[in-house]
């Protein structure tokens, strides 16, 4: 029996499956909405410290649009939502109000009977553009949290498998020696 957990579902929803969804959107929309609700209701879900499963789904989908996945991981693979949940529960409780407000606003904007997480990426982006314009502080606060969750040390709950650092091309080592980059390679010295 295959157990599909929330995270796998979310990854599929925003990842490679997205292109397929675009072409067959009307056909899969109802199923997607149903799947998102099931995932959010979450008997098999991750245990969240502060967020509800519905809030987590909305914030995760939001994060995936802030730093989308392409050939490199995005905020979803970095687990920014896990950082945000932990932050809201413990070390950055001031994020609770913006995070919960934004999650509610995103689902509201998705329309009656729908959730933001299951919309097509283009539809999600349209909502993001509107929220960014109408509520810049709210948008900015949660965007900032997504960035922290993607790039801060994994000890804070995000940046899983150093996914954020891989986006940058950053490698952490305690000690470096020269040459550091291309320009100080011996064969490139004095080239220009």
């Amino acid at each position, binding site marked *: 029996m295959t157990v599909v957990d929330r995270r796998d579902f979310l990854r599929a929803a925003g990842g490679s499956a997205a292109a397929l969804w675009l072409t067959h959107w009307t056909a899969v929309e109802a199923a997607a909405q149903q799947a998102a609700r099931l995932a959010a209701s979450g008997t098999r879900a991750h245990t969240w410290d502060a967020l509800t499963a519905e809030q987590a789904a909305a914030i995760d989908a939001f994060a995936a649009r*802030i730093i989308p996945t392409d050939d490199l991981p995005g905020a979803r693979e970095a687990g920014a939502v896990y950082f945000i949940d932990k932050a809201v529960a413990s070390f950055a409780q001031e994020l609770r109000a913006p995070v919960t407000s934004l999650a509610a606003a995103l689902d509201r904007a998705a329309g009656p009977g729908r959730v933001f997480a299951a919309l097509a990426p283009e539809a999600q982006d349209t909502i993001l553009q509107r929220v960014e314009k109408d509520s810049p502080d709210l948008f900015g606060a949660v965007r900032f949290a997504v960035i922290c969750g993607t790039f801060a040390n994994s000890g804070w709950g995000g940046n899983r498998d150093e996914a954020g650092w891989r986006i940058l091309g950053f490698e952490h080592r305690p000690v470096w020696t020269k040459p550091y*980059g291309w*320009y100080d390679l011996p064969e*490139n010295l004095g080239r220009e």
Partner: protein
Amino acid sequence: MQPRTPRYRPTDVVDFIVVGSGAAGGIVARELSRAGLRVVVLEQGPYRRASDFLPHDDYNVFIRNALTNDSAQQGTTFRSTEQDEAKPGNPVWYARGVGGGSVHFTGNFWRLHPEDFRERTLNGDVPGAALADWPITYDDLEPYYTRVDWEIGVSGQAGADPREPRRSRPYPMPPLPVKPEGLLMEKAARKMGWTAFPAPMAIASQPFRGRAPCQACGYCLGFGCEFDAKSSTLVAMIPDAERTGRCEIRSESYVRKVETDARGRVTGVIYFDRERREVFQRARAVVVCANGAETPRLLLNSASARFPQGLANSSGLVGRHLMYNGNVVAGGVFEHETNGYKGPVVTRVVQDPYVLDPKLGLVGGGGFDFRFDSPPLLYAIRGQGTAMPQWGAGFKRALRDFPKTVYAYGHTTSLPVPTNSVSLDPTHKDAWGVPSMRITYREHPNDMKVYRWFLDRCGDLLDAAGALRRWEDPINDAPQGSPHLLGTCRMGNDPATSVVNAGHRAHDVPNLFIVDGSSMVTGGRGQPTMTIMALAFRASEGMVRWAKRAG
């Protein structure tokens, strides 16, 4: 926190209390205790060791202010002019912890030049600014710059800077290995007819006085050094002070008032200990080294019936002439990897426009460096300034420029403007209930033009280096988060126009000394720490003579 010996009692009348343990306080503590005097150092932040600086954690350091002030706790308000109402903000950035800002600095150790001490003579009266000559000259300070080089530990190459002021000894260590950004700067400078020379840095390039050299970990600006390679007073001075057996470092001790008696002499200080209990520590003399923002705040908070305007403030100048130094930034993306995240922040600098061409009609000057100072999280937050797309595919593309990004920084003078100041906020208080500092700051029009000139040249340098594309950070008339806090208790010979004399003793109070960035009469060219340290060495000699004379 392991206990430090000795442990003085608050009722012991020690020879000196030193308020603050940073660039100045760490040196003063070491020099006084080595001269046989009994010293208590009161530091508002904790006592950290090299191992406390791991793991490298940019979220903890830059977002949670692990090493620095936090306006919610420390209490800071900001307004542009005296007509505005101040609002809570983060206009200043200073370290809290033993070693102070020398723990987390970049380590750019530029000496001032002889002309920095004579700005009034050289430039005359500049309307809107209170330019003044220093009461000391470059030659007076040169022996102490040399002590900083050799006792704190500076890496560099004597003779490489064509405008280098006279130096009595070479550097004790060779320059740090040049980074790709440094090579690009050499190329750019050549094209512009300028000279890029090895940056003088307060970072060990080879083993130095028992300390390891730089291991190029890359976590430098904003971070403490886990290798003790950075030449902070925490590693270069404090251990010497403690070894005397006469100096007690009392961390997490936040001084709120300097007490005086009916004769107008300092008797000690009142501070909050780590349990927030008030303690009165007695002393024969007090040295305030709390930084250019906290020092004037403490003096103003020490007002009494005898000193109603605040302590040492008969001139009314305590807190005035706050200078941040100009700091402008352009960024560029290059074809190949520079990987600036490896190694120290800066390895090459240009100082050709140290004094701007008189034809420009501007007062001041400065220098440049090519650097990279954005660890991963900071790069994602502000790595390409306001040019960075905020989200989506464009943001993602910009993030991938991380290993090819280089910043050109311009560091300049800022004029001493009387209304740019640290004062007490009339209503806002910090987490201890002490009146908050209120910063009033607006750039002098001359300085805005100087910043523009330097920012244009930053762009020219990036172009000359071959940047594929570039951007610039906007010049802000209300700078936030400045780490350079200068001029607020200026030194001078005339008690009517200065706060301390050339020996750093308060004109108004015979047993009160003040030495830190607040002592600087003019701001130099943007890298003040080496000068603060040289002043501290020099002032300490005078304090020792004074203490021995006073018996």
